[in-house]
C-alpha cells in the first residue's frame, strides 16, 4: 500500500518497520505497566475501593445518573432538531426580515460557550424564581447550541443538492415550499444523517457540563461516589467506570454515523445523490465550526 508519505517498503524498509513495530509495542507495554504499577503502589486495586460496585444501591445510583444523562440528552436532541429545522427554514427564507435575524441568532448561539448559555438559564431561574430545575438549564443550553449547529447542517445539506434538481422542480411549476419539501429535503436528509448523528455525540458528551451546574447526571453522581470516605475515596475506580459508560455510548453513536456515511456514499455511486456531509459545515467559517468538539 503506497501512502502519500511513504513508499511501498522494500526489504530493508520492511525490516525497519517490523523492528520499530516491536520497539513501539515494548514501549507501550512499558507505559501500561508503569500506569498499573502506579495504581497498584497507591492502593487503587484494593478491594474496598471496588467493592462498592457490588452493592445494588450503588448500581442503582449509577443507573439513575445514567438515566438523567440520557433524559437530558434525549429531550435536548428532540428540541435541538426542532430548533434547527425552524431556523434552517428561516435562514433559507426569501424574506430578508426573516433571514437576517435568524442568521444572527444562529451565529450568536454558536459563538457563546455552552456553559455560559447554561449559566444564563441557571441564574435567570434564580433571579426571576421561574422554578426551573438545573435539568432545564442543561436542556435549554444544549438545545440552543446544538440547534444552531443543526440549523447550519440542514442549510448546508439543502444547499448541497445539485442545482439542477431545484431548477427542474421550479420549471415544473412547484412553489418554493413544495420544492424544498418534496424535492430537496428528501434528497438532503440522507446526506445529512451522518452529520446529524455526529452532532448527537457532541450533545451527549456535553450533558456532562450539567455537573458544573449541579444537575445530577452521570458525572455528578461519579463525583459524589468518589468522595466517599467509607470506600476510601474511590475516585479512580468510579471515573474508570464512568469513562467506560460514556465512551461506550458515544462510540455506538459514532459507529452509527460511520455506517450511515458509508451507506450514503455507496448509494451515491448508484444514483448520483449529493455527497454526505460528515461534520458541521464550515460555511462562513462560523465559530460553531468546532462543532465536533
Amino acid at each position, binding site marked *: 500500500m503506497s501512502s502519500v508519505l511513504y513508499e511501498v517498503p522494500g526489504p530493508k524498509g520492511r525490516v525497519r518497520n517490523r523492528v520499530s513495530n516491536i520497539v513501539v509495542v515494548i514501549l507501550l507495554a512499558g507505559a501500561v505497566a508503569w500506569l498499573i504499577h502506579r495504581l497498584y503502589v497507591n492502593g487503587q486495586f484494593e478491594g474496598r475501593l471496588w467493592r462498592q460496585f457490588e452493592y445494588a444501591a450503588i448500581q442503582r445510583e449509577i443507573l439513575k445518573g445514567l438515566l438523567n444523562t440520557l433524559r437530558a440528552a434525549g429531550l435536548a436532541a428532540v428540541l435541538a432538531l426542532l430548533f434547527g429545522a425552524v431556523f434552517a427554514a428561516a435562514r433559507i427564507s426569501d424574506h430578508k426580515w426573516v433571514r437576517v435575524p435568524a442568521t444572527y441568532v444562529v451565529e450568536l448561539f454558536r*459563538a457563546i460557550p455552552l*456553559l455560559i448559555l447554561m449559566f444564563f438559564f441557571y441564574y435567570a431561574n434564580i433571579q426571576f424564581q421561574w422554578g426551573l430545575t438545573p435539568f432545564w438549564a442543561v436542556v435549554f443550553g444544549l438545545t440552543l447550541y446544538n440547534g444552531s449547529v443543526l440549523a447550519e447542517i440542514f442549510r448546508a445539506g439543502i444547499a448541497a443538492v445539485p442545482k439542477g434538481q431545484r431548477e427542474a422542480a421550479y420549471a415544473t411549476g412547484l412553489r418554493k415550499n413544495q420544492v424544498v419539501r418534496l424535492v430537496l429535503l428528501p434528497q438532503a436528509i440522507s446526506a445529512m444523517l451522518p452529520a446529524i448523528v455526529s452532532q448527537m455525540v457532541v450533545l451527549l458528551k456535553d450533558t456532562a457540563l450539567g455537573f458544573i451546574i449541579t444537575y445530577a447526571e452521570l458525572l455528578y453522581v461519579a463525583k459524589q461516589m468518589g468522595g466517599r470516605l467509607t470506600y476510601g475515596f474511590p475516585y479512580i475506580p468510579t471515573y474508570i467506570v464512568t469513562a467506560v459508560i460514556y465512551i461506550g455510548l*458515544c462510540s455506538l453513536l459514532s459507529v452509527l454515523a460511520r455506517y450511515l456515511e458509508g451507506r450514503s456514499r455507496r448509494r451515491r455511486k448508484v444514483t448520483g445523490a449529493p455527497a454526505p456531509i460528515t461534520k458541521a459545515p464550515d460555511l462562513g467559517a462560523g465559530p460553531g465550526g468546532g462543532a465536533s468538539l
Partner: protein
Amino acid sequence: MLSVLTDNWDLFRDGFWLTIRLFLVSAVLSLVLGTILGAFRVSPVPALRAVGTGYVNTLRNTPLTLVFAFLFFGAAKMQLALPSPFWTGVGALTIYTSAFVCEVVRSGINTISPGQSEAARAVGMTFIQVLTLIVLPQAFRAIVPPLSSVFIALLKNTTIAAGFSLAEAGAIPAAMSERGENQLITLVWITIGFLILIVPLIFLQRWAERRTAVA
C-alpha cells in the same frame, strides 16, 4: 448596566486574562501533541497507527468535563498531580484538543493525492524533502480552516475550567454572586467578552482561508 462591568473590572480582567493564557498555552501544546499523534496515524508502523487511532477514538468519545474531573480528582490519588491547577487545566484541555488536532492533521495529509509524492520521489527527493516541499505546503491549505475551528472550540471550552476552581472567565458569575451583583448582566458582559475574543479568530480564519485558497 455598565457599572456592573466597571465596578468589578478586576474580576473581569483577571478572569479573561486567565482564559487567554489557558487558551494560548493549550493551543500550542495541543498543536504539538496533535501533530505528533497525526504523524503516528499515517506512519507505516502498525503499532504507532494503533496508538494514534486508540487515542483519538477514546478522547473524542469522552466528555471534556470527565477529562478535567479525572485530572483534578483522580490523578492526585495516583500521586500524579501536575504542578498547579493552571497546568492541570492546561493538561486536560491539551489532552482533549490534541485528539481533534490529530484528526485535522491526518485528514489534511490524506487530501494530497499519492501521485504528488510519487512524482517527487521519482525526481529523487528524500523523505524530508517530500514532506517539507511537497506534502506539508499543500496539506496546510486543507488544515487551516478546520484547525481554526478546533481552536475556536478550545477557546470556548476553557470555560469548563471554571467548574474546577480555576478563576477564569467562566468563574466570574460565581464570584459576582458573592458580591451580590446582577448575574444576568454579568453573563451578558462575559458573552461580549467572548465575542471580542472569538470574532478576531473568525476573521483570521477567513483571511487564512482566502490566502490559502487555490487561485
